[in-house]
């Protein structure tokens, strides 16, 4: 039987008068972008389309939709902290058109059933694209490989046991070999759990001063070294999540010179803050990896500048308020980050002249897309109509209580910003727009 769909009017969206930064084609000038039925129909210096809805991008930058390859959406299982719906709203409010969600839900996304659930929930409730990441091992227990192939068929775009890293090197080796045959990147949260056991913040002068147990930089370094060696042995692609130490960055730099398939991402909080910013035993400064020392932050900046770091990813990790309103050593690890990522990148990297706007766009588009081999992060005729508009002039203050996320655990509450996301367009539909400043 043939189903005849009701004839729908073609949806057309015209993004006018913006400055387009499109890294894959090298466009870095004024362009209009027309999106028809969710796909890019034209990119021209000037487009007239009488019947199209118009987004005035005058004074704004227009870029391929930003992609965050490291978020926690907490659904299924931890819906009091975040849901796919609220996490997607936070992503949209942060200028992201696509997010990749980590598998540490309850149950863990270690089977095609859970993957399909996430894909379905996202289809119905998420205003941005949600790409699930599957677990490496069953239950993320680090023992037996999960159903990686079947999960890929169900929609995963990478595998990771984020937060519960695979300690057994034999299992990790097999995971890299197996994942490579499905074209999947292994994303590793590099932490030797024996070295970091019991730690709350980075081990150094600050942890000693505050009397808090330390998470030494070496707990990350030894695992990064292991993963690089295993990647060389297996030929599998490994991606270092939230890289945070000088040694780890230096090892990735070295490995890439040798042609080993290793990539890395950094979070905004790791390039914006150090452990000396931890004040008042505030749980909103507690995350893994912890805020590191000054030399580590410097190394992260250098890694971004010279391209050793491929992507900026937020590691958006929602926890309800009461979980962070505790003695620091009892607080869970993680901070939200979707809504402050672009503004922090502008403030910390672009305005001080460390990277160009084009490089920033790459770190949010082509960079992360390449890491996991996802067909996103480019704007081309016929491609997905996902567009991020951002401003470099809008003055605003991040008020965590107005966050779209269900959780409010950010260390950047109250921070004043210049510039940030302006509008988020997913498949030709405006899903978020910056609030218009009301004159005081």
């Amino acid at each position, binding site marked *: 039987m043939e189903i005849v769909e009701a004839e729908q009017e073609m949806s057309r969206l015209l993004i006018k008068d913006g400055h387009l930064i499109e890294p894959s084609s090298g466009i870095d000038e004024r362009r209009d972008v027309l999106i028809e039925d969710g796909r890019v129909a034209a990119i021209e210096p000037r487009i007239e389309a009488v019947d199209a809805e118009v987004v005035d991008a005058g004074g704004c930058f227009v870029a391929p939709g930003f992609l965050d390859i490291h978020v926690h959406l907490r659904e299924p299982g931890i819906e009091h902290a975040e849901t796919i719906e609220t996490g997607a709203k936070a992503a949209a409010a942060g200028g992201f058109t696509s997010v990749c969600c980590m598998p540490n839900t309850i149950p863990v996304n270690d089977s095609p059933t859970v993957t399909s659930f996430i894909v379905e929930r996202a289809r119905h409730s998420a205003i941005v694209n949600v790409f699930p990441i599957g677990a490496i091992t069953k239950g993320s227990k680090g023992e037996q490989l999960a159903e990686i192939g079947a999960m890929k068929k169900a929609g995963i775009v990478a595998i990771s046991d984020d937060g519960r890293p695979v300690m057994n090197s034999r299992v990790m080796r097999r995971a890299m070999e197996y994942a490579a045959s499905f074209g999947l990147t292994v994303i590793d949260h590099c932490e030797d759990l024996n070295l970091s056991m019991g730690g709350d913040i980075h081990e150094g002068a600050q*942890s*000693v001063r505050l*009397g*808090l*147990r330390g998470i030494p930089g070496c707990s990350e370094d030894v695992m990064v070294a292991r993963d690089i060696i295993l990647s060389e042995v297996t030929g599998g692609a490994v991606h270092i999540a939230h890289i945070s130490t000088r040694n780890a960055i230096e090892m990735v730099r070295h490995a890439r010179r040798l042609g080993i398939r290793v990539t890395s991402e950094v979070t905004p909080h790791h390039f914006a803050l150090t452990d000396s910013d931890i004040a008042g035993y505030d749980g909103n400064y507690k995350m893994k990896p912890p805020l590191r020392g000054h030399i580590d932050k410097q190394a992260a900046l250098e890694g971004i500048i010279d391209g050793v770091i491929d992507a900026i990813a937020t590691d958006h990790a929602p926890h309800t308020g009461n979980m962070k309103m*505790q*003695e620091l050593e009892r607080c869970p690890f993680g901070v939200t980050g979707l809504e402050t990522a672009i503004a922090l990148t502008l403030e910390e990297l672009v305005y001080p002249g460390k990277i160009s706007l084009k490089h920033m766009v790459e770190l949010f588009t082509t960079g992360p897309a390449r890491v996991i081999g996802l067909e996103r992060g480019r704007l081309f005729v016929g491609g997905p109509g996902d567009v991020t508009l951002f401003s470099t002039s809008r003055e605003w203050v991040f008020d965590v209580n107005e966050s779209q996320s269900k959780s409010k655990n950010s260390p950047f509450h109250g921070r004043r910003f210049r510039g940030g996301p302006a509008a988020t367009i997913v498949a030709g539909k405006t899903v978020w727009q910056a609030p218009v400043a009301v004159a005081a």
Partner: protein
Amino acid sequence: MPPEPIPSTARRGLLGIETLERDEIQWLLDRGHYHKRKPGESAKKLDTLRGKSIVNLFFEPSTRTRASFEIAAKRLGADTISISGEGSSLSKGESLVDTLNTLAAMLPDTIVMRHSASGAPQFLSRFLSTPIINAGDGQHEHPTQALLDALTILDYRPTLEGLRVSIIGDIGHSRVARSNVYLLSKFGADIVLCGPATMLPRPLAELAPGILLTNDIVEAITDADVIMMLRVQLERQNVLNFPKNEYFQFYGLQWEHFQRAKPDAIVMHPGPINRGREISSEVADSPRSVILNQVENGVAIRMAVLEKVCGDC
């Protein structure tokens, strides 16, 4: 929605030594000296804090500090109640903030608090208007211990300036060591921190000016005016960081060590002491040991602290 923190300028209490000015410490030491029992006198009972109520909240076991605070408060005429961790609603799953807010709603004038988590009183003070006196937080600070230690040293020396004070033991896990380091450094003492490398993290040297680290007890004791021995805090080590059976051999204070120290050097210990673990019995019971003077001075200094925090001084 999380409550808005109280501005730091509006906070009172005594959370640590690190943030105190030298003048403030000096005031407390002078006042503590005033409260010391004179030879031959029995302890006075005053009414400086009459009508004030003080809650002693001890989430961690304590004998001397808790008794000391209670006696100090009673000597000043205050009303006190004591709550211990085991009997409190924390053991029923209530959060620390909720427990403290509940107590604060009964309008005590001061909360004296001990907690096993570093920073617990600092964290609470951001949300609580009742002044908090820190009676020891995790591995972070134990300000009244450092004050009573200074008062004790001053019983035997005219000034702290230029003294060589050696603190020996599990420094990394010690709140007593941290508070003492801050206090002694502010008064110009030379501080030697000594312990096995696994309990002596190198960044300790950056806590304050004038700190020397060593893993050699003989070096630490040489020319010392004051030797402070610390207990190994097994309860704070996730896994044992040292071979327990040989600890005394390398880091226990023994009589022979004294030949290296200044002739009139004194030995201190915050207690509880473990004879044969970090200190030999003959040292602990010798005339050099001022351990019980410390305990006595504890009451005097806590009277001074209570007056400062909840009185009109």
